[in-house]
C-alpha cells in the first residue's frame, strides 16, 4: 500500500505513544511472548540436537551386503561399480572373505576357536560395506541390493536410527501442540494489551473513520505496536536461550565429552529465525483481532 512520509512519521509517533502509555501492559506482553518463545526454543533445541545425533549416528551406520559363494570376481566388481551411482549410496567398499576373516581375527584375537575355524575353511562371504546419506533410505536400499541375483544377504543396523527418527517426530508434534496452546495464550494477552491501547483511543479511531481514514491507516500504529511487542519478547527469549545453550555446551564438554551436541551457531540461527517470525506473527495477528470491532463504523 502506498504510504507517504507523513503517514510513516504519524504511525511511528502513535506507536511510541501507545507503548509508553500502557507500559505495564506492554511489559506483561513482552514477558508472555518471551516465555512462549522460550518454550518454542526449548523444543527447537531438542529437535535440532536429536537431528544432529541422528546425523552423526547415520554417518557411522553401515549396511553389509554378502555375496553368494562361487560368484566370479568380475560380477562382484560389476555390481560394485553399478551401485556406486545409485542415489543414497554415499560410499561402497568391496571386501573379500579373506579380508573379512583377517578383520575378524584382528577384532577378536582372544577367540581361539573362532580363529581356528575361519583359518581352516573360511565360512565367510565376500561382500560390500555400504554407507548412506539418509537412514530412511536404508530399508529401500537394502531391498534393492537384495533383488540382485548375486546377493546372498543384506544386514543393516537401522533400528537405532529409525527409533531416533521416530522420537524426533514425536517431539516435533508435542512441540507444535504445546506451542500452539502457548501461542493462543500469548495471542490472548497481546490482544488485550492492544485492545487497551485502542480503547484509550477509541474516540480518535472513530473520528478518523468518520473523516475518511482508511482502515489500514488506522491499523498501522497498532499493528506496529503488536510487532514491537512480539519482537522484543522474542529477543528476550533468544538472549536467554543463547546464554543457556552456551552454558550447556560448556557443561556437556566436561560431563559428556563424547555426546555430540549441535553447535551453538546452528542452534541459534534456527532459534532466532523461528522466534522472530513467531513474535511478529503473534503481534500482527493480535492487533488485527483487537481492532476488528473498533473499525466497524
Amino acid at each position, binding site marked *: 500500500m502506498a*504510504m*507517504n512520509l*507523513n*503517514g510513516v512519521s*504519524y504511525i511511528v509517533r502513535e506507536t511510541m505513544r501507545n507503548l509508553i502509555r500502557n507500559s505495564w501492559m506492554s511489559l506483561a506482553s513482552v514477558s508472555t511472548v518471551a516465555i512462549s518463545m522460550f518454550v518454542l526454543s526449548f523444543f527447537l533445541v531438542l529437535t535440532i540436537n536429536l537431528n544432529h545425533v541422528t546425523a552423526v549416528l547415520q554417518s557411522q551406520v553401515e549396511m553389509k551386503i554378502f555375496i553368494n559363494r562361487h560368484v566370479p570376481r568380475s560380477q562382484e566388481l560389476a555390481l560394485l561399480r553399478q551401485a556406486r551411482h545409485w542415489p543414497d549410496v554415499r560410499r561402497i567398499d568391496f571386501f573379500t572373505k579373506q579380508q573379512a576373516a583377517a578383520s575378524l581375527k584382528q577384532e577378536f584375537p582372544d577367540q581361539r576357536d573362532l580363529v581356528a575355524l575361519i583359518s581352516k575353511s573360511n565360512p565367510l562371504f565376500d561382500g560390500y560395506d555400504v554407507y548412506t546419506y539418509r537412514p530412511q533410505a536404508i530399508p529401500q536400499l537394502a531391498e534393492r541390493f537384495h533383488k540382485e541375483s548375486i546377493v546372498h544377504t543384506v544386514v543393516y543396523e537401522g533400528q537405532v536410527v529409525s527409533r531416533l527418527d521416530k522420537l524426533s517426530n514425536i517431539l516435533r508434534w508435542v512441540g507444535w501442540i504445546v506451542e500452539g496452546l502457548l501461542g493462543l495464550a500469548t495471542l490472548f494477552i497481546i490482544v488485550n494489551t492492544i485492545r487497551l491501547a485502542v480503547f484509550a483511543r477509541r*474516540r*480518535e479511531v*472513530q*473520528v*478518523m*473513520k*468518520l*473523516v*475518511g*481514514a*482508511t*482502515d489500514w*491507516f*488506522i491499523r498501522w500504529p497498532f499493528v506496529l505496536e503488536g510487532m514491537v511487542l512480539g519482537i522484543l519478547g522474542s529477543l528476550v527469549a533468544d538472549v536467554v536461550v543463547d546464554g543457556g545453550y552456551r552454558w550447556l555446551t560448556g557443561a556437556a564438554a566436561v560431563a559428556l565429552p563424547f555426546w555430540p551436541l549441535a553447535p551453538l551457531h546452528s542452534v541459534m540461527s534456527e532459534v532466532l529465525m523461528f522466534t522472530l517470525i513467531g513474535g511478529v506473527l503473534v503481534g500482527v495477528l493480535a492487533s488485527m483481532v483487537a481492532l476488528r470491532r473498533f473499525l466497524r*463504523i
Partner: protein
Amino acid sequence: MIRLDKVSKRYPNGHYGLVDVSLTIRRGEFLFLVGPSGAGKSSLIRLLYREEAASQGEVFVDQFKLSSLRRSQVARLRRQLGVVFQDVKLLPQRTVYQNVAFAMEAVGASTRDIRKRVPQVLELVGLSRSRDNYPHQLSGGEQQRVGIARALVNNPIYVIADEPTGNLDPETARDIVKLFVEINRRGATVIMATHAKDIVNQMQRRVVAIERGRVVRDEVRGAYGYES
C-alpha cells in the same frame, strides 16, 4: 449530486427509521432537514456518510452507489463529505488546532499542507485566537465551530450537519447557521438537520420535512411549518 431512491431503513428492533424516501440534492444547494425528534432526520444523515446502510432502495452520492461500497471506498466517500455532529466529537486532550489538523493527518495530508490549511479554516470559523485552547476551555458555540472547521478542513463537496445547533442558545445558533450559509456561499453543498424553527423560517431555503420516516414536504423556499 446526492440521490435517495425509495430508501427505507429498518432497524434490527423492527422500528422504521425511514420509509420509502426519495430525494435529490444538487450540488451547491442549501437544504434544511426538519421534523420532530425521532422522525428520521438522523437516520437519513447516517445513511449519507454510510455509518448505516439502507435496508431497501439505493443511496447515491456522486459516483458512489452506497449499497455496494467496499470498505476502502467508504473511506473515499467520506473524504467528499464533511460531517458535523450534534455532540461535536472533539478530542478532549488535543487543542483546537490539533483537533482540526487531526482530520488532515488522518487522510495522510502533508505537514506543509496542514500548516497552511488549518489556520485558514480557523479564520473562517472565527477561532484563530483560540487555536491553542482545549475543548473544555471553549463555550458550546465555539466547540461547534471547531467541529465545523474539522468538517471543512479537507475541502468537502458536501457538508452534512446533524443538529449542529441542538445544544446552543438561539443567539449562538443563529451565528452557527450564518457560518453554514457562508460555507454554502463558498461553494459547498450544505445539508443541515435542525429543530431551530425561527432560523429556518428566516433563511428561506429549501426545506425537507420528515415525519415518521416519510418525506411529508419539500419546498424550495420553505418554512419550518410547525406552528404548534
